[in-house]
């Protein structure tokens, strides 16, 4: 399988240079072949990862779990305390306030928009057709000094301040090895509305036969960013359902450690 993938990489590489007629399907097929194969990707039921964020002198550990049914939790540990930065329990998104250390529900619009992305799991490019996404080859561009194919991925609409708005994400696929090295999306609300949010992918590493980016940098175009460095990753982890649940009531009482 891997040999075939490599052959495909060569063939498509040559075709793309000479004929300039590479198709979206060829790009995606080669991408998935290079990162472990569509079949193996389709079997992923969930993954968990341990990662770090370096903030000049502070290394903040992060734990993430994402499941196929959409449930997910991202926790970070700070001074020994765990904070849920983002979670979804099947019903609602929630997080823990840094001020009160209590769980608070996400805005309903954010929850709804998150729900619309659940069927993408584990990769929006994998089942885009079933999900009704359209992907077009929107030319070529250079990102991080690398020549890339630019894929325009039109997803289901998203809610922005109560209105249905189109949801477009651009993927930049390295022309040499066909993996995405960057994503771009316009910010739809807030003070930064209209500006471009970028996610950079690198440090691809193998996890049980599949390749994942172990480094993800989130930044605004031309601005500063924050990198999540993955330390370890596990496929189909066994997890306790309770980690996703919005705490029914405040479980800690004044004066008592949970």
């Amino acid at each position, binding site marked *: 399988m*891997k040999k075939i*993938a*490599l052959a495909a*990489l*060569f063939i498509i590489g040559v075709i793309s240079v000479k004929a300039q007629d590479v198709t979206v399907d060829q790009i995606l097929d080669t991408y998935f072949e*290079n990162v472990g194969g569509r079949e193996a990707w389709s079997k992923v039921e969930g993954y968990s990862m341990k990662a770090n964020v*370096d903030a*000049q*002198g*502070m*290394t903040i550990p992060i734990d993430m779990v994402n499941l196929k049914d959409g449930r997910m939790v991202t926790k970070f540990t*700070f*001074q*020994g*305390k765990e904070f849920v930065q983002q979670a979804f329990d099947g019903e609602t998104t929630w997080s823990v306030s*840094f*001020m*009160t*250390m*209590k769980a608070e529900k996400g805005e309903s619009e954010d929850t709804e928009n998150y729900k619309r992305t659940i069927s993408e799991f584990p990769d929006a490019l994998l089942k885009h057709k079933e999900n009704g996404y359209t992907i077009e080859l*929107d030319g070529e561009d*250079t*990102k*991080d*000094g*690398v020549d890339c194919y630019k894929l325009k991925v039109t997803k289901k609409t998203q809610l922005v301040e109560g209105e249905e708005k189109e949801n*477009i994400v651009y993927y930049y696929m*390295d022309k*040499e*090895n066909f*993996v995405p*090295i960057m994503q771009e999306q*316009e910010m739809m609300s807030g*003070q930064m*509305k*209209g*500006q*471009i949010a970028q996610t*950079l*992918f*690198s*440090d*691809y*590493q*193998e996890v049980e036969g599949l*390749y994942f980016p*172990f*480094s993800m*940098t989130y930044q605004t175009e*031309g601005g500063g960013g924050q*990198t999540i*460095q993955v330390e370890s990753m596990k496929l189909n982890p066994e997890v306790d359902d309770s980690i996703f649940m919005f705490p029914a009531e405040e479980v800690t009482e*004044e*004066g008592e*450690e949970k």
Partner: protein
Amino acid sequence: MKLLSTLFIVGCGLSLHAQGIEKLNGDALFGDMQARHIGPALMSGRVSDIEGHPTDSKTVYIGTAGGGVWKSNDGGVMFNPIFDDHCQSIGCVAIDPASPDKTLWVGTGEVWTRNSTSIGDGIYKTTNGGKTWDKMGLEKSDRISAIRIHPENSDVLFVGVQGALWGPNEERGVYKTTDGGVTWEKIFYIDENTGCSELIMDPVNPDILYASFWEHRRTAWSFSSGGDNSALYKSTDAGKTWNKIHKGFPEGKFGRIAVAIAPSNTSILYSVIESEDKNLSGMYRSEDAGATWKHLNADFGLVVRPFYFSRIVIHPTNPDIVVKAGLFGSISRDGGNTFRSLGSMHPDIHDIWFDVKDPDKLFVGTDGGLYRSLNLGNTMEIIENLPICQFYHISVDDQEPYNIYGGLQDNGSWFGPSSSPGGVEARDWEVIGVGDGFRVYPHPTKPHIMYSEMQGANAIWRYDDKVRQTRIVKPFPVEGDPKLRFNWNAAITTSLNEPDRLYVGSQFLHKSDDMGNTWTKISPDLTTNDKAKQQQEESGGLSRDNSGAENHCTIFTIAESGLDQNVIWVGTDDGNVQVTKDGGKTWVNTTQNIAGLPANTWCYHIEASSFNKGTAYAVFDGHTSNDKNTYCYKTTDYGQTWTSIITNDVYGFARSFQEDYVNPDLLFLGTEFGLYVTLNGGKNWVKFENNMPATAIHYLEMHKRTNDLIMGTHGRGIIILDDVSPLRQVTNEVVAKNLHFMETKAFEMSEESTFGGTSSETQFVGRNPYDGAKVIYYLSKRHTFGKMTMKVLDSEGNFVTSLTPGKKKGINIVGWNFTSNVPVVAKGKTITFGGMVAPRVPAGTYKIVIEKGKETYESTVEVKYDKNSIFTLAERKKQQDVVRKLYNMTEELAYMVYQLDTYMENGEATAKDNAKLSKTVAGMKTEMNTLKETLVITTGDNYVGSAENQLRENMGDLYSTVADYDGEPSSTQMENLKKIEGEMETARQTFEKIKGKSLKKYLDSLEKMELKKPILKSYEEFVKKD
């Protein structure tokens, strides 16, 4: 893993043959080097066009004279640039009514044709709301006045092309496309001198079009508006046939004609005409769709400078409310019979936009930015986040941080800092000249003295900032002198050799060695002195316009060699390059030695080389002769021979140039469409586009101490490319290596307070440069596969901190803010802010280690103390010792709490299954909790619900305040330290007691019952960071 390694091999193989600096494009070279915009935005700049969404009033676009297109998504509160990759001079913006959220057209080339206006290069289209743009032709149109889109068919457009300002141009007239801009048909054309200056479409019947045609021409020395061919036309058959509609207009020649149709009643039109009969110029109204016209008004506000103010905008629902652009802007509420001025704002109004939902709200575009009114133009407020000001020139001083000085189109002269606590804000800028501002210079050694000027050297000021006094110091004619001719943007410069020296250029070169008090002419007339080009009082055409903007046959650039004060270069606006080697006694005109340069091409800038006194670079700008080629020449023999250093890589005519001070092959060129860099003396050029718009760069300056390249742009304010020294080091050898560390100078740890920043969210704030250490390296290939890490180690190899490495192909810059790492802090109910402080490292040499796959790359970074520091080394040592003590104590405390928590959790769990142990565990827990409650906060939250501080919090407070100040800790802090040390000692003793009693009892019981003892991390393991 086999695949992965194969990918690596494939990657390496492909990258090997693609190297060599000639082959690098900007993306693969400049990497993390980013341009930094500092505005300012307080005076903003010229807005040439405003366009709003037809139904959603939150979406507003503006086109600017030199700063591109900006979009607001929030009803005009905040604006973002959306056209940075393309020509920044905007004629018009149009929204497709059938697809208003997505499809937008931009016609480039401003149509308000002042002397300093830039040029356009065609029409552009976006189908995604401005994220990406395609050029759709009309490349030679030069200026596009209007784009009208069929309301039901997005493929049908009519475009008014005003055309070239500076010469004849066949690509004028009305163009039509029926295939969305793929092909264009010129459907109406008068002649090569008469362009379409306005085109409007009947909003009800798109087959009805009105077009005004304007015969006009600028030269560098004159302007002419009007002629037999200026006229107003109408078509009722979608542009197939056109008829003049002048019934009611006066006889004779016309100049520029404005026209507008009332959206609420398409029979009503307004027109403002420039005619031979001044009394019959001004506002006309038609109530029969242009069949007949009635003259209403020839007030100043309606007839003033038609070339600059020919826009009429009518209220969306009331056809009797009409606004005319002008010096102050005029609004009528009685159908154009009488007018009053719009509310107070920056003069020179170019366009108006009424909010579609609430027409009392309107926007106004001026020479000084965009204004908003909520009461039909009575009071105006400026939008404060549009840094679109137009610098003609800039200079820098040597203060810390250095200041930048410059003059602006219609916005005076200013200076402001290159960085400021909280960012460069409006309040950081100081005005030191009025009118139009041009060259502004600081005195080279007296930082409180500066020179500025206004148009045509009507004033040259020497300003003393210490006493806030100005004195006009311009050279006056003396007995026997002819009239002195000064350019609109008159040449002034200071000397690198004599600090009190000032040069001013008229047609003569004037020199003063006493800061402008006394002047000596040190040259004859250095220009061509062509009398035909000196008739400015005749300039303007139908409307006289002698503002000084057309003054010609003047000196425009002066450069005294820094290596020899007797070598002075002078360039004139009529194409002469003159040089003296004897301080002005004799002059040689070297112009005839410049092969390939058309005669009389404006010499815009001469740069005297800092490497060799016979070497200079001369930049010529031919655009005022309708020549848009790029000209930059180099001489190494005092102008006896000149060689072009321009290649096909460069797009757009150039005005500015900068030679690097260290690497003579590193050169910078500022063109009308952005910045170009060469690493090899001009063999090839690379465009710099990282956060750098394609804006006109009128002046380039390099700061010697910081190696910053500073750009005075004519449309986007001041843009700085911080520290270009990495570019000096890019060679063929470097780019062939996998990873190459660039040498950096020692980095200074600033001890300045970071307080600052008073701007609100809606005000522009210029970004500061990064003020930490920078690790700079070149990667020949982007790192995509496998692990890559970066660490800082001290000179003994101890771990200091980890950094996130850059992975781009090209130059990577990784910042390090001189800190080591935060202490491990005891876990409590809340977090402690004291534990977020990482101590700064002491001065010294630090090792940088990058691990990339199997390879390790090492370099060093040198860190030194702030040279302005008030601290002695002994004081620092005391601080560092106390910080270290508190850091260690914090971690010791953390470990103690960790042990307590571990034992208590273990005890609780064990007791659950072994009831026998519950009493022992309960006893142990009581003792441990009693101790723990004195060590950390165990209740409350992180905000105002916080509980009383305990030892961890008090220790953290002291630690962070001592760590925050690099000098000796205060006596109070030392006394507090003693107290905390005492409390820590008490805690230690209490813990020892517990260990000896209740904990021992518990552990012994476990042993006896053959139960597992809790496993604890060792202290070293607990505090480990790398």
